[in-house]
């Protein structure tokens, strides 16, 4: 497989006309490589769903170009559909009264599979998501996690080279969510290019290699996950619980503590979250010096994650 799995160049999508026109995507450009998971982040209304719709060939772009596995989604929608699996989260999108096998049989036909191939592909897809034993059961009798794995099986039945995942772990318990993540990670390792949208940023941290952040219809950030986490301006949060006079956290000349946020303060003591630029020996020494005359009960250090970076960038981008 050569070339990017997904190429998006100056993609613009405008809904409506004239004064009521709304720009959902404004000159968005990025790529997804094979064997890579790119997380598409953004607040509600940022344009994520519009972008997935364009990639799934359900919506035409107003301007710009989009290719999926080298196929232009406007001029060659059928080949693009044949190689791209689209997986949604949630309970909808399935025929509840039909069995898993019958659902897969129909979706296999929609994926362009010949009848002689469908049976084997169904068995394979069910095995990949560990649902083989339930093939003859009605979908309405499945748990949410099982339905989500069925969604994945539907996405896999065409052996996709590109996978579009829209909230794949929404509403799942931690065990099922981890199962779904393991399947997605395996697909990535097998060379499938994956574009993932999720509000569960733990999915992003566990799976994605890169983050594209949409804000106000534009790409606000496009970088590796580690780099994205650092864009918050702090690399760790130190939570300190203590009693006695509250130290002056920002007293260091090197400005090691970026921000201090009191979470609680009462007769039993206080608790503070300190955002530090770098969790280092210098910070440790600085904090220790502030603890003179203070009773410290607890100190916790947490590395800055995607969620904190996402919140920090979103706050900065907010009008």
């Amino acid at each position, binding site marked *: 497989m050569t070339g990017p799995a997904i190429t998006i160049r100056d993609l613009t999508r405008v809904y409506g006309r004239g004064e009521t026109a709304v720009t959902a995507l404004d000159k968005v450009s990025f790529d997804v490589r094979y064997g890579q998971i790119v997380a598409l982040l953004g607040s509600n209304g940022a344009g994520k769903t519009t972008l997935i*719709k364009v990639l799934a060939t359900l919506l*035409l772009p107003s301007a710009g170009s989009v290719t999926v596995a080298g196929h232009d989604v406007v001029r060659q929608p059928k080949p693009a559909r044949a190689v791209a699996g*689209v997986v949604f989260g*949630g309970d*909808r999108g399935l025929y509840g*009264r039909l069995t898993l096998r019958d659902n897969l049989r129909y979706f296999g*036909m*929609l994926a362009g599979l010949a009848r002689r191939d469908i049976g084997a592909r169904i068995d394979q897809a069910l095995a990949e998501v560990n649902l083989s034993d339930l093939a003859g059961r009605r979908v309405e009798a499945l748990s949410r996690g099982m339905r989500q794995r069925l969604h994945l099986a539907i996405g896999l039945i065409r052996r996709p080279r590109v996978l579009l995942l829209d909230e794949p772990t929404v509403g799942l318990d931690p065990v099922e969510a981890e199962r779904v993540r393991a399947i997605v990670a395996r697909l990535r390792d097998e060379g499938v290019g994956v574009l993932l949208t999720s509000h569960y940023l733990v999915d992003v941290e566990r799976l994605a290699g890169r983050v594209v952040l949409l804000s106000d219809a534009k790409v606000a950030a496009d970088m590796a996950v580690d780099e994205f986490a650092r864009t918050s301006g702090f690399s760790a949060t130190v939570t300190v619980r203590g009693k006695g006079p509250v130290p002056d956290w920002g007293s260091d000349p090197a400005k090691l503590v970026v921000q201090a946020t009191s979470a609680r303060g009462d007769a039993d003591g206080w608790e503070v979250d300190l955002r530090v630029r770098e969790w280092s020996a210098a910070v440790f020494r600085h904090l220790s010096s502030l603890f003179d005359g203070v009773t410290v009960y607890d100190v916790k250090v947490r590395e800055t994650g995607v969620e904190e970076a996402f919140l920090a960038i979103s706050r900065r981008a907010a009008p």
Partner: protein
Amino acid sequence: MSRFAAAIEVGLAGARHEIRLILTSWTGAAILGIAQPAVLLVLVVGSVADPAPAEVGRGVVGVALTALWSFTVWTGAGVLQGDRQQGTLAACVIGVPDLRLVVIGRSLGVNIFAGLVVAATMTVTLALLRQPVRVGSVGLVTLGLALVLVSSMVVGTCLSCLFLLSRFGPQISAALMYPVFLLCGLLTPLTFLPVPLRWVSDGISMRWGMRLLTEAMSGRFDPVALGMLVGLTVAYAFAGAYAFARVTDLIRREGTVELV
């Protein structure tokens, strides 16, 4: 595999899928395919003043077509509405096979099922009523019924465009149902229609299906009815194919279908 063979395979897969869906929910099918024709047949046969075979035959044809059309056209048209409700419509729209083939196949499934159920219901009901029905020409009646089923499948497929365009497809199609029945002469004789409206019924294939079958029950062949039924069905098919292509293009431009 040739494109034609692939198209047939898609159509048959769609038909099998739709029959599976109908079989999992018998209530709707029982109302449309069993209760409706049985009740209508009891009312119509019981109310025929002249129990002459021709009059009874005419009543039976009217009931059969009303039952078939209300089952096939409106159920066939509604297959995409069901998909919209379940969140599976987008998957159909962005499927690799042409959406028209998928919908035609699913309408075919509805037609096969409806034809069998309505025929069985009417046979059993007439037997229970001890009402003999004289079929003048079995061949012509069979041909007429086959053409009626094809025509209703085509009309159902055309109407399903409504469900791609609007969330109010069920209301629009329900509003159309009884005017169409009246214009076809299925519920009342066409002579009851206001004169300025009668030309409209000439453009509805089922009006000619009714005439073809009524004549066939009496053993007569009506070439005008046959020609009009076939011609209008072909015209609907071309118009539907064009409309479907335009509508699928429109929904991609306007984004009227949600992902789930």
